[in-house]
Each structure stands twice: as C-alpha cells, then as structure tokens.
C-alpha cells in the first residue's frame, strides 16, 4: 500500500528567463484554489449531512411518546406517536454479523484461490468475473434472493433446526417461509462476497515478490508462504475489505426489503421469519408515511449513519495502527 505521496516539491525556480505573458503564478493560484475548494465542498457536504439529519431527527424524537431506543414499535402516525429503533438495530446488527461470518472467510479463500491457487489460465478471467459481479446492483440480488434463494433455503432451515436447534439460535419456533434474518444474512454474504474478494485479491497481488521469495527460500510450503508473507502483508487490506463489506451489509436496503418478512419483534431465533433493519424499514414505511413519519424515518436513518461512521472509524484506526508494522520500505 503506497503511503500517501506527500509531494514536497517546491515550485521549481525558472530554469530560463520567463517568457513574457506567462501566467504561471496566477495559474497556480487559480488551480490550487479550485482543487482545494472542491475538497472543502466535500467537507461541507459531510457536515450538512450530519446537521440536516440531526435537525429533522431531533424534531421527530422530541414528539416521540415512546422511548426512541427501547420501544418495540413503529407507529409515528398513531395517537400518541410511538416509535423506537430497538428492533431495527438488533436486526441490522444480527444480519450483518451473519453476513460477515460467512462472507469474510470465504472471500479471503476465493481471493487466495485467484491469487495463489487457481491455474494461471483460469486466474485472470476469474478475477475479471469477480470484479464484474461486484457491480451487480443490489436490487437484482434482492429479487433473486426472494424468488430463488428463499425456496432453496427452506430445507436447510429445517435441517439446522433439527440438528442445531439445541443452540437456541437455530431453533425454529415458527413455521413459515425462510424470510428470516438468517436468510437475509446469507443473501448479504453472497452480495458482499465479490467486493470483499476483489479488494483482498488486489492486496494479495501487491505482496512484494521478494517477501514471498524469502519464505520460499526458507523451504516453506505454499500454505506457509501465504501464512508468512501474504496474510501478514494483506491483513490491513483484509480488514478494510471486510469493513467495506460490513458497511454495505449494514446499509443494504433492497436485498433486505425484498427478502425479509418484517415484524416488530426481537428474537434470537434467527430462523424465524420477522425482524427488520434500518434501511428495510425506511424503504418499507416511506410510502405510507406522512411528514412526521418521514422525520421519524430520518431519525432512524441518523442512527444507521452513526453506526456506519463507527464501523468506518474503527476500520481506519485498525489500519492506522497496523501501518507502522507493515513497514513498506520496498
């Protein structure tokens, strides 16, 4: 990972007499202010996202008769208006955790497969296909999940219930189709697989040849080469890839909205249909919401925003801490 190139080149003194009419200095100023201006504009956009969302959210929460964090209901149009995010927070976190547990190891495996295991002729086209799959829009995953995956998973759900029901988590207490948080987690895992794979593979390919050769020359097997030089070098890359995937999973709207059959209940029986996520709830409730209902949805969106901020911040911190050890003096 190339560290940020700090261009520290002082403006070169003119090597020959400046041609008359040359506007180097003025040009530099204009160009600098243009580019700095867009950077500042970006910061302004970020700030206003936070400000506007908080403002609307505050309006909504101040009129909420329930507790915004603990109420198991979403009825801003009711009298009195009651809504809370507990169920949404739970559903979002649980489905994302399921997705990460499945997707990250598999994605690292596929990335290694492409970078170090697949026959050379197969590797390049495979990488290409994975990159293309990363671009498949989430709504397509959504209808595929609802119309193809859900029926397929019913057998698996019964089987999990039969053999792992004792874990409580995999106990299926309600009959019904597999429109559960577990199915959502699997679908999210499939969705984020390509992007996590793609980023990890990119990092694995950047492992300096000499690091791998160092391991080889010590008499390392292929797996040991990977463990000694590829994985340590790629660790921060894997983390940032996973966080990228987690960010997608947390905020994914369409795939959840199409697959989940929502309910305002918290249950650790992840195979039961029901539950909800922030994004799914916003998409589902938006159509029928009045002005106040929209503010309430914005309030829940603010929580999602903060959640993704925290995830991203954590990822940055981990990567920054790793940096000193990655010692890319290559």
């Amino acid at each position: 990972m190339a560290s940020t190139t700090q261009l520290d080149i002082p403006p070169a003194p003119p090597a020959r007499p400046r041609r008359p009419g040359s506007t180097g200095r003025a040009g530099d100023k204009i160009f600098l202010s243009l580019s700095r201006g867009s950077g500042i504009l970006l910061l302004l956009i970020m700030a206003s996202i936070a400000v506007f969302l908080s403002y609307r959210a505050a309006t909504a929460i101040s009129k909420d008769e329930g507790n915004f964090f603990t109420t198991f209901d979403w009825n801003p149009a009711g009298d009195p208006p009651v809504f809370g995010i507990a169920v949404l927070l739970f559903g979002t976190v649980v489905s994302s955790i399921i997705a990460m547990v499945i997707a990250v190891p598999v994605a690292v495996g596929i990335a290694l497969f492409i970078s170090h295991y697949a026959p050379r002729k197969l590797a390049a086209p495979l990488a290409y296909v994975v990159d293309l799959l990363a671009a498949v829009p989430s709504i397509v995953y959504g209808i595929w999940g609802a119309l193809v995956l859900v029926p397929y998973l019913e057998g698996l759900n019964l089987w999990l219930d039969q053999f792992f029901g004792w874990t409580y988590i995999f106990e299926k207490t309600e009959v019904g189709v597999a429109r559960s948080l577990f199915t959502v987690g699997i679908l999210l895992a499939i969705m984020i697989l390509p992007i996590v794979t793609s980023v990890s593979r990119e990092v694995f390919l950047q492992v300096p040849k000499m690091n791998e050769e160092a391991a080889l020359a010590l008499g390392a097997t292929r797996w040991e080469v990977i463990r000694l030089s590829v994985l340590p070098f790629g660790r921060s890359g894997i983390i940032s890839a996973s966080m990228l995937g987690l960010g997608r999973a947390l905020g994914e709207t369409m795939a959840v909205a199409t697959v989940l059959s929502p309910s305002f209940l918290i249950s650790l029986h992840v195979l039961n249909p029901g539950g909800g996520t922030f994004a799914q709830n916003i998409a589902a409730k938006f159509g029928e919401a009045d002005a106040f209902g929209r503010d309430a949805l914005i309030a829940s969106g603010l929580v999602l925003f903060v959640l993704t901020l925290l995830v991203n911040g954590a990822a940055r911190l981990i990567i920054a801490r790793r940096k000193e050890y990655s010692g890319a003096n290559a």
Partner: protein
Amino acid sequence: MSNATTTDVRDQRPQTRPGTHGTGLSSRSLPRWAPLGFAAVSVALAVGISTAAGWQSRVQWGLIAALLFLAISYVATTVVENQRQAKDRLATSVVWVCFLAAVVPLASLLWTTVSRGSERLDGYFLSHSMAGVLGSEATGGVYHALIGTLEQVGIATVISAPLGLLTAVYLVEYGKGGLARAVTFFVDVMTGIPSIVAGLFILSIMLIAGLEPSGLMGALALTILMIPVVVRSTEEMLKLVPNELREASLALGIPKWRTILKVVLPTAIGGITTGVMLAIARIAGETAPIILLVFGSQLINTNPFEGAQSSLPFYIYEQYKIGEAASYDRAWAAALVLIAFVMILNLVARGIARWKAPKTGR
C-alpha cells in the same frame, strides 16, 4: 497486469509416483490425482448419507460433501506424507471449497436473470412505458425507466466527475496538513454512507425547502454516493504517476498547474476514465434514494427537473412488489437490462484501462 509480478507458487507440489520411499530430499507423497479422488469419494458419500437420511435440500448435500472432502484429504495426507504437507493440503482444499461454494449462488444469480429476463426482453419492452398497463397484464415496458436512469445518472456524473477529480488532484498534488487529512478521512467516511442515508439527507433538505420529488433530487443523492468513488479511484491513479515525470517537468521551469494538466493528468487519464465509468455503473443500480426522492412513475417524463420519474432499479422493485406472474417477468427483464447496462459500462471501462495503460516495455 499485476499477475506478472506475482510469485508463482501454483505448481509447487513434487511430481511423484506414489510410494517412492526416499531419503534426504525426496519423501513419500500422494499422487497428483489424489484431490480429485477425495472429491469423488466425498461427493459419493454425501449423496449416500443424505439419501439415507432422506434430506432433500441440495444445499445440505454440498455442505456435507465439502466437510467430508476437507476431512479426508487432511487425514490421508497426514498418514501418507506429514503434518506440514497435510496443513498445506488442507489449506488448498479449503480454498477450493470456498471457491466452489461461492460459484454456485453467483452463477445461479446470473443464469436466472439471463434466462428469466430474456423471456420478456424485446424491442417492444425497451420502447414502451407502463402507461395504462395493469400489473397482471403481460404488456408494458421499461422505456420510461431507462430515460429516468440515464438522466439521473447523467446529472450525477456531470456534478461528481469534476468535483471528484479536482479533490483527488488536491489530495495528491497539493495535499498536506490538516485540511488534506480531513478530506482524506471524510472521503473514506463518505464511501461508507449507505445509499438510503444519502437519500434521507436530500429528503431532509427537500422537506425544509419544500421541494417536490424529481429526477434531480435523486441525482443529487447519487452524486453523494459517486463523489467518494471518483476521488478514491482518481487518487490511486494519480499516485501511480511516477514522481520523476513531475520532477522532470518542474525542472524545465513549467509551472505546477501546467505540469498537472499537461503531464500528470494525461498520464493517468485512462485510469481516471475507468474509475468514473465504474462509479457510474455503481450508482446506476441504486434503488433506495430513488424510492425516497424520485417517487416513481408509470409514465414517460423526460424532464428530470420536474415531476416524478422512474428508474430501472426502481422499476424492478415496483414490479417485484406487484407480485403477479406478469410483473415478475417484467422485473427479470428489467434486471437483465440493468445488468447488461452495468456490465457494458464495466467492460468498456476496463477496456479503456487496458488500452490506455502505460506501456510496459517488456
């Protein structure tokens, strides 16, 4: 490209016949066809076990076969070779299993979309809107949604591409100190903003300013999603431009801004174009902001600045929700159109990247 620089550990296994008991450098090892044999045995066993137990789902069969495969190859290698080779073999098997496990759903996704989508996809579908079509009727088309998508994505690109490009130039060519660090940090943060949150942001502005839903509002939300992608990819490309080029130009007395415009950007232009196109492909599939901000429509509305519009991803969702056989067909057909659009953008973008890539003299 980067393949050339990787060390090839693919064919590291000793090429041996089984049973060669050697001393010193050679050692006992499994034959080359062993993994295939293990795979065949585990699949056979898995089918046997599942049939015996009466399990229907093929998902289970696959899981059992995968676990058996891992176990058999580990044990066999430990017995015949040694612990280290067994670990190596286990890793190889795990990686293969990961790959195969991921191929199945992704292939199913593509295959379903293509086969179901091609049922309804024709010239009529592409050139008609949903005006006056009931959900259960097997007519109607996607024309209005196509127009909506093109216009919304077009506006978003016109705003984000220059902004993103300039920001990246600032970060790479000028950036030092607090401001650059802040921008870098918040670009990262922006990359992680869920599309629905971007939609809610524009929605809150709309609520405050009393604006009506329109294509433009959707495009603004897409802009927020697109800018960080453009900044990131452009930044990467600019960093790849060797410093020697900049120094060579500066040493000739060429001012910095002209160096950037005439030397740095042209060198990186292929990669930058690719980045922008990939960003377009990414936002073209966004549904959530459109639901909130563009409202959706059955009619053709060519004016993105006024009135509700549709868009391809929104259309797919809408048709899915109707829940009739005919609307499912339309959803799949539109999904195929959307995937084709995104894929073509991707292919062209990658083509440009390859074509414009700096020639490595080899």
